[in-house]
């Protein structure tokens, strides 16, 4: 069920009331309810894929215990590799099997008859990329002695299946989230109110901003030949806002929902479009995934403590795999590689000295210039992310940079486009005001008089009800 659906609006209050009124007597009962409701939540999508989560949960619970109980490093490694193999095996089978087969056919068309016979009609289970990475981080952290494996199977199951973050993150670390399942949660009024505020903001981002942008982004990406360069620039701008508001909106709702139950999830987005450099962008965008790749791939490969060539190699590996994580399509790989290329200049001391030393770039205009340049580079990379295939991505870019690139987009004459741009402007102003907080409206209005605060919250709710776009699936559900 979607977070912005009627079903979830019924589901959440029921679970909330049961959690705090009926199942509040002990940690066990609280966790039990969370597991049942999380499985119900996930099963609402497709109950047949519950077996995958259960398989991942049981195997990693047992393997982590084995890693801890093994005396020799070799046997610890074997159990770790089993966990990695199982989790990545599930992910690769469901996500990449057909992609690899189709890619082989492209290279060797003669094999098409044999291969298409064997191609599986596989549906991608929702959230598979998220929960497999979450459980994998648990076994790796146990291996690294960062965390002791839990013997509390119920707490571990609740940690893996926790419904607010199950299908689209944040990808939590066991060191951060698992201990929260081993203590009894008591209702915290301020936390719950804060959670509701974050849910509200997440719904606004998703339903008003992202879903309205989606209409125009889809229109332009599906028919780039019918539009001028400047319109196509507007189209990719809409997509940039859509993907940010869709994904960060989901994260806000997930984090806010978790707070209602007394849990703290990690921040997943820290206003990335205000970044002044590509490395800064990647410290602020999808933080749970980028830190996962940093801690479990980049650093084990040597990180930045190896030779320059190896650092470059590591960066390309991380970004390429990050691209692949997003989907089984060459466009995502291209997107990853492009971001790796963007990252390279930051490895150069001369480059860094220039930017840190430049007087202009330390002024407000200079900072704005850096932010806009970074945003523009990211915007170009989103074209690959959004396009159906590589040739359409290049077609889009080619058309966009035509002679009409600097003309006024004709779409600006449409009232609905202006309405969406108005909401985007309002949204960006609020995000800018709240950029030092965990989410934009965390403290906005807290110092106001009660009447103004209530008007503010009602305004957001009414904007959501009146100005929501046509309902779209959360983009990151497809990953």
């Amino acid at each position, binding site marked *: 069920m979607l977070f912005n659906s009627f079903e979830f609006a019924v589901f959440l209050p029921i679970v909330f009331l049961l959690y705090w009124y009926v199942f509040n007597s002990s940690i066990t009962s609280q966790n039990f309810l969370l597991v049942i409701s999380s499985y119900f939540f996930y099963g609402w999508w497709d109950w047949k894929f519950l077996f995958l989560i259960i398989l991942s949960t049981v195997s990693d619970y047992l393997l982590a215990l084995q890693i801890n109980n093994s005396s020799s490093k070799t046997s610890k490694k074997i159990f770790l590799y089993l966990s990695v193999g199982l989790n990545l095996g599930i992910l690769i089978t469901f996500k990449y099997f057909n992609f690899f087969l189709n890619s082989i056919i492209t290279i060797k068309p003669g094999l098409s008859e044999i291969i298409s016979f064997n191609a599986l009609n596989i549906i991608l289970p929702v959230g598979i990329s998220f929960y497999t990475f979450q459980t994998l981080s648990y076994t790796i952290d146990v291996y690294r002695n960062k965390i002791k494996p839990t013997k509390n199977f119920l707490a571990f199951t609740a940690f893996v299946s926790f419904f607010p973050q199950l299908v689209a993150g944040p990808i939590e670390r066991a060191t951060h989230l698992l201990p929260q399942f081993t203590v009894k949660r008591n209702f915290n009024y301020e936390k*719950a109110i804060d959670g509701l505020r974050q849910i509200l903001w997440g719904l606004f981002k998703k339903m008003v901003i992202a879903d309205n942008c989606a209409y125009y982004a889809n229109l332009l990406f599906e028919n780039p030949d019918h539009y001028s360069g400047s319109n196509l620039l507007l189209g990719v701008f809409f997509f940039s806002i859509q993907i940010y508001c869709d994904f960060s909106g989901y994260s806000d709702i997930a984090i806010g929902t978790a707070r209602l139950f007394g849990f703290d999830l990690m921040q997943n987005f820290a206003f990335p479009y205000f970044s002044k450099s590509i490395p800064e962008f990647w410290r602020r965008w999808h933080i749970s995934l980028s830190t996962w790749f940093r801690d479990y791939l980049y650093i084990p490969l040597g990180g930045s403590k190896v030779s320059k060539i190896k650092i470059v190699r590591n960066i390309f590996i991380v970004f390429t795999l990050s691209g692949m994580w997003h989907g089984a399509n060459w466009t995502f790989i291209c997107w990853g590689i492009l971001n790796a290329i963007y990252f390279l200049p930051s490895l150069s001391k001369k480059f860094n000295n220039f930017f840190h030393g430049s007087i202009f770039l330390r002024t407000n205009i200079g900072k704005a210039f850096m932010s806009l340049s970074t945003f523009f580079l990211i915007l170009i990379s989103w074209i690959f992310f959004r396009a159906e295939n590589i040739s359409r991505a290049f077609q889009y870019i080619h058309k966009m940079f035509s002679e009409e690139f600097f003309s006024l987009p004709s779409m600006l004459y449409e009232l609905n486009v202006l309405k969406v741009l108005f909401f985007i402007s309002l949204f960006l102003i609020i995000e800018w005001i709240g950029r030092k907080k965990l989410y934009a409206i965390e403290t906005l209005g807290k110092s106001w008089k009660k009447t103004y605060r209530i008007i503010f919250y009602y305004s957001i709710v009414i904007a959501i*009800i009146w100005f929501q776009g046509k309902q779209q699936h959360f983009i990151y559900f497809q990953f």
Partner: protein
Amino acid sequence: MKLRRFLSKIILFLIGLIIILFLLNYSINKFLNTTKSTSGVLYIWGDSQAYQGLNLTILRQGLNKIVKTSAEHGAGIYNFIVFANQVPPNSNVIIAYPRLSFIRRKSVDNNKSILSISALKLLYQHNYSLKEVKNITLMNLRPRPFYSEKTMLYPQKDTLNVSPPVKRYVKRFQKVPNYFYKKQALFNEGIKILIKKNCKITFIDFPFHQRLQHAEKMTEFSRANEKFTMKTISKYSIDLDTLYLPIKDHLMYDLTHLNETGANILANDLIKMMKNDKIGRKWIVIRFSESK
């Protein structure tokens, strides 16, 4: 205690929200949609066939009336009931007979208009499920102007747009689903409301392209529509008339919609027919002349 305080705050917030939404909805709708006089106004309802198939400027000039339309692409039956409720008594109305709307799945009907409890109640009484009623309610929480004085006409092109193809329509028309008759029953309820209000009604049965017109003939869809038309005409003593459009000109944009030329011809012919209508109830069937 804190949990109770939290819950009570939520409940109060939600109650406040419902009250505010209702008040805003009611007051803004009233402001946007109240028409002061009726004598000089012509009201139109229909789906895309009416939206794209009537030149309002010609109607305005020919009938010397303000023309207000609530025709919309994919307009659903809820939309029509709201229209019937909204239109002032003794009004002049044009209703496009929504053949395609009857066969369209309920989930894709465009029922965006304004919130009307009586219309929702009527839908529920005619076997619309609670879920369907809920979906229509959610679609109509935002106040909006119910009428517009603008429409768009499809341009005349050299080739006919045949997407979807005739075959697809005919396949769909072979057997009508159950909700078809329920929608017709609701349409009848809307007509009752307009007649009770003593409105002068002109029904227009828009044409299909001659290819589809010919192929549609032997289908259950065609029979069901004809039966309903005859029943309604007889029940409400409506004067039936047929308007034949020439097929030598390209008057259609696609298989179901008139283009600009067709819309202009229709508007001019309508003006003549409406001016000569003494009864105040007319059913005009528009077809392409088969003999030419």
